């Protein structure tokens, strides 16, 4: 009886509570959030007041220290609402604060982590540059050791929360020739009158997830003190990044699950009500097949993702599984939103119906957590034992 797929009564209750919060706070505003393309500060404050931003952090800093499976339940439910808001929130909860909590000294934790958990400071993580993203070895942002600290030079692109961020965990290299072995994480704060830091560059206008603001961060000979080096030794940045990549990939998969399910539920209602040739279109076999395929792939994705969450929680090595589950769930989501666009017919092409928003939001999942081309190349190589 070792194999058990049930959630506990407590986890089901937690899901219900998150679902309820999303239904009340976010759902009524989804269309507006997408159309305005602005970060919703009022919603952020309301949401932060509920305490969810501290889900995975220690209680002494205002967090809840929650387990991985329950976290994933949270991500799945949160993404049902606005994908953009979910991206901003998960950046804050997971990637944006992880290395501060892991390596920051007490002063940094009190100054950065505690207000971040309260939602008073916004955080982000910076990997991508103009010539590197999934290819971390191509990182060119340079960290140079100087007396009492480091000088950082470089431009980071595609930074979620970038235009509004107060602090960033920046991946930089001590020497581009060292490839992956030269990479480290550094805490860089926004530049103020009395502190050196990053400044915002160009803001990007995205196809989907539009209320999550995304842009460039620029560091021009920026000085940071020694305590802002996030790590135990130089050159272990990639190893440290690996600590959260599994979670990031499963979390991305949870986003895919949520978008796919919302899109299909919406399309189901549409198909049951849209009449063509005297019948609701859900009576036609070619339409039914779309739902059947989705259903099969969705259940497989969901089971796989929660298996990965279980493996992470039980500290079972699962790098490949998490990549596979991210790949599978995101491709499932692509199938779901594409087919929903067809179920809606011409109506899919106008903004009056939400289906186009699901389609636009879903596209980002192909790149976050590693492009599928990079993932597949790696996974294929592992499978063939090259």
């Amino acid at each position, binding site marked *: 009886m070792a194999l058990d797929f049930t959630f506990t009564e*407590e*986890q*089901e*209750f*937690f899901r*219900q*509570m998150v679902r*309820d*919060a999303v239904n*009340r*706070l976010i759902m009524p505003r989804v269309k507006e959030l997408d159309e305005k393309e602005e970060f919703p500060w009022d919603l952020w404050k309301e949401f932060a*007041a*509920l*305490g*969810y931003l*501290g*889900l995975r952090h220690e209680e002494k800093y205002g967090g*809840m220290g*929650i387990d991985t499976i329950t976290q994933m339940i949270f991500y799945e439910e949160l993404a049902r609402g606005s994908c953009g808001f979910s991206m901003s929130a998960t950046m804050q909860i997971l990637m944006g604060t992880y290395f501060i909590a892991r390596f920051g000294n007490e002063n940094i934790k009190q100054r950065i982590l505690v207000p971040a958990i309260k939602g008073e400071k916004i955080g982000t993580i910076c990997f991508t540059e103009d010539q590197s993203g999934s290819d971390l070895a191509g990182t060119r942002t340079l960290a140079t050791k100087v007396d009492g600290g480091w000088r950082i030079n470089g431009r980071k692109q595609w930074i979620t929360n970038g235009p509004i961020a107060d602090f960033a965990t920046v991946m930089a290299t001590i020497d581009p020739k060292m490839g992956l072995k030269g990479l480290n994480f550094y805490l860089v704060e926004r530049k103020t009158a009395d502190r050196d830091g990053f400044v915002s560059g160009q803001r990007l206008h995205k196809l989907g997830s539009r209320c999550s603001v995304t842009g460039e961060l620029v560091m021009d000979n920026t000085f940071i003190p020694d305590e802002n080096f996030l790590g135990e030794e130089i050159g272990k940045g990639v190893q440290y990044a690996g600590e959260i990549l599994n979670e990031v990939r499963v979390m991305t998969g949870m986003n895919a699950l949520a978008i796919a399910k919302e899109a299909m539920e919406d399309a189901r209602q549409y198909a049951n009500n849209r*009449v063509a040739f*005297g*019948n609701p279109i859900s009576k036609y076999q070619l339409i039914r097949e779309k739902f059947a395929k989705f259903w099969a792939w969705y259940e497989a994705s969901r089971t796989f993702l929660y298996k990965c969450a279980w493996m992470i929680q039980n500290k079972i090595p699962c790098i490949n599984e998490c990549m596979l589950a991210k790949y599978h769930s995101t491709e499932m989501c692509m199938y779901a939103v594409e087919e929903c666009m067809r179920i809606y017919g011409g109506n899919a092409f106008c903004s009056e119906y939400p289906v186009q928003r699901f389609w636009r939001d879903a596209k980002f999942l192909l790149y976050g957590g590693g492009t599928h081309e990079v993932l597949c190349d790696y996974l294929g190589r592992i499978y063939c034992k090259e």
Partner: protein
Amino acid sequence: MDIYVLVKQVPDPEANVKVKSDVELEIENKYFTNFFDEIAIEAGLKLREKFGGKVTVLTVDNKKVDALRRGIAMGADDAIQITDPALEGSDPFAIAKTLAAYLKDKPFDLILAGRQAMDDDAGIVGPGVAELLGIPHVNMIVGLEIDDPKKELKVVREVEGGKEILSCFLPALFTCQKGLNNPRIPQVMNVMKAMKAQMKKVDLAALGLSAVDVGGQAVKIKVQKYLPPPKRPPVKMIKEDFPENVKQLVKLLKEEAKVI
């Protein structure tokens, strides 16, 4: 103030409900806390914030305790589950009798409940408990003004075309209607507390009741038959061209659908 809130877990409106047999429904396992009960919990919490004291959520249910968990998540101090196999098949009056048996020895100031449960829509339990305890009750309140728990208080009800203001002394029981307040969204810290909370269980013996007082043997209201709602009639396509099709549509709306 010592406040008790009567709560119930009801099927989610999105849950599939099928007629299994004449007297039995098959309900998909999707439940949530009766929304009117959430309003009652919120009213209790607001009074506690003003006057201090304690809010206890109370349910009669053998299986589902999520309504109690929600009470704790919203901020209630205590949760009591009255549970006993003999309660299976109880009608609303038996539930009221059970709740009243629990409450009769308790030093309460106020009992709050939702105006009705969103599953059976009976609206009997709240007034039933008040009658059995011999305390004043007002149904479907949308306003509650208490300046001093020892003095006369005011409650507001909506009536046809206006509002009705009533007064009474505590202890009393009020059932709460939409508009009284906006129930709070629980903070995650309290959600976690609720996840770990152990509900205090009370059985019928502790209340001095037995199987003959409640459950199937004591029902005053029997379900005779469940009937599913009528299926949507097939779509009728009007084949005539304009303007004949409009005339035909108006005729059908008037004579067949009878909506105009």
